[in-house]
């Protein structure tokens, strides 16, 4: 609804948009409405004649990629565009061009539903672009998976990446000639999702993202600022701008604005209340009595105005209370900053004594600034406006005090040089992988990154360069303990732009690629120096895919010598290992992501291991919905149990989130050990169950570096419009900028200089061995079997999950709601009468354990796995004991046994549990005679249009089991005991005289306990067996230092 009073006298063009009125708000509104008219007219004109006509998309496929070589293969559309032609496609199919009017720009489109053959398939997309004159525009692309872009036959983009599609994954300048231009896209799918994205506008053409619109709006604001110069107007502009009262896509109507003003008023009132609660806690209720009263008044006004938002003049009525509330909030927040600053000053003075210079002066300033703040509140309370200049002067004085007291005088910042990454482009996402991805899924080029040193106390000093790339992604810094060298990740042009681990001296000398393997079909990155001189890093050489996306490579943890030799795999997990860092006691803390029969949105926990890969165990957050995801853990100085990390979500904000201090001695799960979220001194911690944790809130953080237990360097983006800068953050909620580089992101702060080398933990591996020893003290200790009578457990069943290959991402690959992986059954080992067990297991093998009763039924489900290194002796107290639980004193376990048990095979050698091979024969023997048609049908034939057999589809609903997403908390013992299944109950009760043999019973029970697996290997699990990848995984595995040592030992 346009206000009737605004009559546009000016001509409708860009030079005459500005329509000055009495107030800046009226001026902006009038001008804006003019702008809307102009753009509507332009749009109509463009549609009619247009400088540029984007023709409809045409699509053709499927062409083959079954050998994984399709990206490089040249199919007919690359040599000719003939929209009426038909070609032979993959698997003897026919490929024809089709016009796709539904493929509109600025949206992600999936291709799967448009083709019969989608796995390892390729499609081409073509459109004609007609330009009235030669011009350059920008094309923004997205793809799942690989992407090639040609314009008029010239190849502009070539990215052989596995990924899911999203806007703006790649961009390229499109140099259009006058007349017809030909845009061709090649979209190379591996498996699962397949799709693309295109737009000529960043962010998909949202008017907010339209540069012309932005420029025009920005010009209007410039004129406003020139015409309305009073401090009140200036502040009001700032406030309304920051509060989003004038969003770029405002439609010009008053109610839209009134609602935003009302929303802002509410936000300022509730924001003020939150700050007041903290101030009340710090200073006492009396100190906040006045602003509390004032807030109540404002709240009343907001309530009274609420029904009038659609009426004319509502915006004007709202502006008074809204601006008062905004200023009051600023006053209170600044007051709270003074409290925080005071606490930090007191702490620094107490901790550092004379080393902390100027404490008395800072205290005097604090007193004076506090008085000024109180005067401002009194003024507001007296119904007088808070003068903008008073407010801003005061704010600036507080900021200046923070710089002086917390930065320049802070003894913790007097370490000299600080190493940081300065990465451009700094806007959008400046190189943070999505939370389910690692570097291998990220854009490799198009970056400009400097590993630089800065003076943390001099925000204006020029950075000095250690290393610079104007092309490649550079990141994942790790400084050597002597402070002389730095490891980082960067693609290597010599290795097909695959990421590699690099090292350079902090003097910029001696650049070398550490990862020396000649292979160029996987990536190596995220490296960490170890106390003994070796290097731990992550690599996608495991040839595994993220189970749900398939296109994203899993990167696991590896060990190598300093010269890049003797590469050995350390983690054998389902999903990524991330962010290795050495703890003060010599262990390594890292993020382990896993989900197997547990809710898969909540399972990126902290793990620890010794540098040789032994003692892999949960560090924090096992069996927890919260914290959802922990990245960038680093130990606090002097502590073995406390780390700082970033709490993020499963999806949502890439790698970023809240800064948390976690003390594993306070507890091991959920909020138990989260001692503080920064900032958040007054925050009451709960256990939120949120997938996209911390998404949408500000400020956001990455890369915390502890200077002490209380002070941290951190990269922070304060709000949606800010830049990622370097800040000082402390437990008193101070967040003080140290370095902001407009246009760039400042990441990964590390003070330069030596740090104490943590102790070397003696290696406990024997690489010549293929096995490891496991000692369990007492299976009944710990919560896993709480309440289960002693003597119940007779054996442990050992199961090995086998993880999927690149490109194979899907929920129901191996079972219906039965976990994500193929499960190999290895057999059982005995448990002694006293609850102890001593047995040998294959090393380098993920192992899930199920304690079995005399009937062979699992009494608990380990919906995770442990892994032992070759020759390791691994011990545990019991079945999922708390970390704080030591062994009991005075109870001798296994007094009678000296020889470790070998695994007792389960009806044959270790093998993948296949329904067809293990269960179907039981059905054939006992059931199929009566049940071979109709509702209960146990025929082994494939289900029509499905991947599972008729018998499997028939049987699994009669089985009670954890399914795919059971409670992440530890299950109550016997919760899913096979006896609770209808199938078992029916057979036990007696069913038409069916008598199962002991083995047939065992096969059914084991199938139930394993969560009803269907496919026993990946050939059975996916339609097109990834033979090349199966072979490739074996080839790379054969290069492993442990595998080689075992071979040498076998030869001797």
């Amino acid at each position, binding site marked *: 609804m346009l206000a009737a009073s605004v009559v546009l006298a000016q001509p409708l063009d860009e030079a005459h948009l500005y329509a000055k009125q009495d107030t800046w708000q009226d001026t902006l509104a009038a001008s804006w409405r003019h702008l809307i008219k102009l753009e509507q007219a332009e749009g109509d004109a463009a549609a009619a004649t247009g400088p540029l006509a984007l023709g409809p998309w045409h699509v053709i496929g499927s062409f083959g990629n079954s050998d994984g070589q399709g990206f490089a293969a040249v199919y007919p559309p690359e040599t000719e565009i003939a929209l009426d032609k038909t070609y032979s496609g993959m698997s003897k199919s026919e490929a024809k061009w089709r016009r796709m009017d539904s493929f509109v720009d600025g949206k992600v489109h999936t291709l799967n539903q448009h083709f019969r053959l989608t796995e390892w398939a390729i499609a081409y997309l073509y459109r004609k672009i007609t330009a009235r004159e030669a011009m350059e525009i920008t094309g923004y692309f997205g793809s799942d998976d690989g992407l090639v872009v040609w314009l008029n036959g010239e190849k502009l983009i070539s990215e052989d990446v596995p990924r899911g599609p999203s806007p703006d994954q790649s961009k390229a300048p499109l140099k259009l000639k006058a007349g017809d231009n030909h845009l061709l896209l090649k979209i190379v799918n591996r498996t699962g999702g397949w799709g693309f994205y295109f737009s000529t506008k960043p962010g998909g053409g949202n008017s907010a993202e339209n540069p012309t619109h932005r420029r025009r709006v920005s010009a209007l604001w410039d004129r406003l600022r020139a015409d309305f110069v009073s401090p009140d107007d200036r502040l009001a502009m700032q406030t309304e701008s920051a509060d989003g009262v004038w969003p770029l896509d405002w439609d010009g109507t008053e109610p839209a604005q009134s609602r935003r003003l009302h929303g802002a008023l509410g936000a300022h009132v509730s924001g003020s209340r939150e700050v007041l609660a903290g101030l009340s806690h710090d200073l006492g209720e009396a100190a906040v009595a006045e602003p509390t009263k004032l807030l109540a008044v404002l709240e009343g006004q907001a309530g009274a105005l609420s029904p009038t938002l659609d009426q004319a003049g509502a915006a004007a009525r709202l502006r008074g209370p809204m601006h008062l509330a905004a200023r009051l909030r600023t006053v209170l927040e600044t007051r709270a900053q003074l409290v925080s600053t005071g606490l930090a000053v007191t702490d620094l003075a107490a901790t550092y004594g004379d080393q902390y210079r100027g404490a008395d002066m800072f205290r005097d300033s604090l007193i004076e600034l506090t008085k000024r703040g109180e005067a401002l509140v009194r003024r507001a309370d007296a119904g007088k406006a808070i003068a903008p200049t008073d407010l801003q002067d005061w704010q600036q004085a507080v900021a200046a005090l923070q710089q002086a007291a917390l930065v320049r005088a802070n003894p913790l910042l007097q370490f000299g040089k600080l190493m940081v990454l300065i990465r451009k482009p700094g806007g959008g996402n400046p190189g943070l992988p999505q939370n389910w991805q690692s570097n291998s899924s990220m854009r490799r080029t198009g970056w400009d990154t400097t590993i630089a040193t800065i003076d943390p106390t001099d925000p204006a000093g020029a950075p000095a360069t250690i290393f610079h790339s104007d092309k490649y992604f550079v990141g994942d810094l790790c400084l050597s303990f002597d402070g002389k060298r730095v490891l980082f990740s960067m693609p290597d042009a010599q290795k097909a732009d695959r990421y590699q681990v690099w090292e350079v001296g902090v003097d910029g000398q001696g650049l070398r690629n550490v990862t020396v393997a000649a292979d160029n079909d996987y990536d190596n990155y995220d490296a960490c120096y170890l106390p003994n001189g070796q290097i731990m890093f992550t690599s996608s050489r495991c040839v595994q895919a993220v189970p749900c996306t398939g296109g994203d490579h899993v990167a696991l943890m590896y060990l190598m010598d300093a010269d890049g030799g003797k590469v050995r795999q350390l983690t054998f997990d389902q999903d990524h290992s991330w962010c290795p860092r050495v703890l003060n006691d010599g262990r390594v803390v890292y993020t382990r992501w896993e989900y197997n029969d547990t809710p898969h949105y909540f399972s990126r926990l902290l793990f620890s291991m010794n540098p040789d890969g032994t003692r892999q165990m949960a560090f924090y957050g096992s069996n927890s919905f919260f914290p959802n995801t922990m990245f960038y853990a680093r130990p606090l100085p002097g502590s073995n149990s406390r780390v700082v990390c970033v709490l993020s979500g499963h999806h949502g904000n890439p790698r970023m989130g809240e800064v948390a201090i976690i003390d594993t001695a*306070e507890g091991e799960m959920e909020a138990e050990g989260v001692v503080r979220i920064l900032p958040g001194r007054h925050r009451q911690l709960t256990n939120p169950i949120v997938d996209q944790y911390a998404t949408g809130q500000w400020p956001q953080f990455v890369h915390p570096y502890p200077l002490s237990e209380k002070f941290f360097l951190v990269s922070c983006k304060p709000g949606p419009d800010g830049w990622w800068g370097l800040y000082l953050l402390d437990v008193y909620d101070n967040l003080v900028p140290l370095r902001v580089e407009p246009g760039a992101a400042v990441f990964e702060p590390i003070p330069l200089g030596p740090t104490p080398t943590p102790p070397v933990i003696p290696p406990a591996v024997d690489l010549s061995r293929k096995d490891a020893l496991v000692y369990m003290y007492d299976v009944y200790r710990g919560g896993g079997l709480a309440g289960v009578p002693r003597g119940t457990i007779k054996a442990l069943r050992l199961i090995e999950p086998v993880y999927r290959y690149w490109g194979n991402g899907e929920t129901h690959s191996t079972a219906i709601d039965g976990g994500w992986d193929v499960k190999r059954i290895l057999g059982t080992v005995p448990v002694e009468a006293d609850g102890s067990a001593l047995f040998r297991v294959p090393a380098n093998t993920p192992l899930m354990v199920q304690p079995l009763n005399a009937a062979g039924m699992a009494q608990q489900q380990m919906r995770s796995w442990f892994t032992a290194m070759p020759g390791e002796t691994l011990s545990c107290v019991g079945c999922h004991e708390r970390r704080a639980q*030591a062994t009991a004193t*005075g*109870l001798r376990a296994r007094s009678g046994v*000296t020889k470790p048990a070998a695994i007792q095979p389960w009806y044959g050698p270790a093998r993948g549990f296949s329904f067809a091979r293990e269960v179907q024969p039981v059905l054939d023997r006992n059931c199929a005679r009566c049940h071979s048609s109709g509702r209960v049908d146990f025929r082994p034939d494939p289900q029509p249009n499905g991947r599972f057999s008729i018998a499997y589809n028939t049987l699994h609903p009669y089985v009670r089991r954890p399914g795919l997403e059971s409670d992440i908390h530890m299950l109550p013992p016997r919760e899913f005991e096979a006896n609770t299944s209808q199938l078992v109950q029916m057979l036990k009760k007696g069913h038409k005289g069916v008598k199962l043999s002991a083995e047939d019973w065992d096969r059914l029970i084991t199938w139930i306990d394993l969560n009803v697996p269907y496919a026993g290997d990946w050939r059975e699990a996916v339609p097109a067996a990834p033979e090349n990848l199966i072979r490739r995984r074996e080839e790379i595995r054969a290069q492993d230092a442990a595998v080689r040592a075992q071979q040498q030992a076998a030869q001797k």
Partner: protein
Amino acid sequence: MKLGSPVLIAAGVLAVLLFTGLSGPPVARSNVHSPAALVLAPDGKVLYVADQTQGNIAIVDVATGKVAGTVAVADPRGLALSADGQTLYASSGERDEICKIDTAARRVVARAEARRQPTGLCLSPDGRTLYCCNQFTDDVTVHDAATLKRTARLPVVREPRYATVTPDGTMLLVANQLPLGSNLDDSLGAVLTLYDLAGGGGTQVQLSRGATDVGQVVCSTDGHYAFVLHVLGRWLVPPTQLERGWISTNALTVVDLEKKARLNTVLLDDLDRGAANPWALALSPDGKTLYSTHAGGDEVQIIDPAKLLKLIAEWPADSLTALEDDLTAVYRAGVRQRVPSGGIGPRAVVATNDGAFVANYFSGTITHLSAQGKITQTIALGPQPPLDDVRQGEMFFHSSKVCFQGWQSCATCHPDGRTDGLAWDLMNDGLGNPKNAKSLLLAAETPPMMAQGVRDTVEVATASGYKYILFHMPTDEEMAATCAYLRAMKPARSPYVTRDGTLSAAAKRGKTIFERKDVACATCHPGPLFTDLKTYGVGTKGPYDDRSEFDTPTLVEMYRTAPYLHDGSAVTLREVLVERNKGDQHGVTSKLKEKDIQDLIEYLQSL
């Protein structure tokens, strides 16, 4: 279990004695300072410090932090000060005597014979009676404080080092450093001996199963509770890892003195950081603060006893985890604070209401800690010369800084280089067959190492100990020094021989039997090392041993190394010689008469 009434001594011997022919001291000797005990004058102005290696009591002026004088006492180990501050008592471990010192005159005014290696001293609340722990004779002697005349001897269990009397003077609490019992007994653990001083006899209170290396005991000001420090060895599981206190934890046990029973035990460790070698304990006079020293990690813990008792009272009975098995209970309850002691090897502490003085054995310093744990003063007993290899080795041997997460030191299982009285199922010879922790005395001279001789030399064994027990990669310096210390260890004179080393008449007879060809003890145990360094099967193979032959151990210091045999199954030598030697495979003892056996044992105890 109750002991008999105190053994009354008909006539005490008070004498000033001259000594000759001492056996080697148990500690490395040099000109270094080694404060091992301290007391504070009632006015708080003077500290008396037992400087063990200097052989004197240093008198320290607290205000100036200077040593104002010294009084010579050889190998001083324990101190007690009269309530008026005028009389100081000191024990001389080396000379087996108690010295009475006039603090004004700064000289010894009387000496009395104690028994073998007197250590801790304490006075009755009325100041009239002095109690002296005698480490190697396993007893406490009771003395008239004025005359030092011995009035009674109270037998305890094993190697007492610390004792205290309840505030009402009715009960004597004696901390037995080591457990005494068969290593086949799962319930084995060190005990606290309570003596009813009114004549009611003694009671043994077991601290916890697996308790060993018992440190100081103190009594609450209301007399209701005793607090005692000790190691809690998880000795019945194989030492596969150190994480989470798998091998040794470090504990404080609270004993209910009314019920004469253990109230509960808490661990002073943290989840990922041990508090190794708990040693000395002091309670502030107002009863509000306990200070424990942890000699391995150079730490002091400042404990709130009220919170501690609250934690114990509120610990849920149905918890899946016993309090003594919970590594974070104390931390989460905020019961105590861990702070650096300000020196190396804190082995003594004395508390005031405002803080505590801590004696740092290896650095030769006394530090004062405020009640908040801040180091407010550091007093050097004198210039500390550079450490020689032996002293440095002794320091490493007693340090948990050379151990992953600081859970223990070499001295945890080998206190004073000897044994903790427990058996450990080390990984070097298969699982399920624990071996009694051997004394390391003469280890270098009697290769190979370990019960099955699986380590060739003391160097190999030391490196293995560091690597597989402390999970630490030793530096060359640590290795060389540790081995130098082990090589320098000297036998301590047996309580069964006279001061000049002469055998008793019975022991002389026993020596003859020992050396008889037909008895054949000396065949495999020939002097002077009392081992021929070979392995034999002597019929001691247990059901879980995978072999029958064991290394022949030295017999030197047998008086302090019980239990015996590789599996620690024999508590007494009689068991070894008679009950466990039915087939005469371990010497021909079946034909010996009872008196011969007694004489033989007397000789063996004298070595």
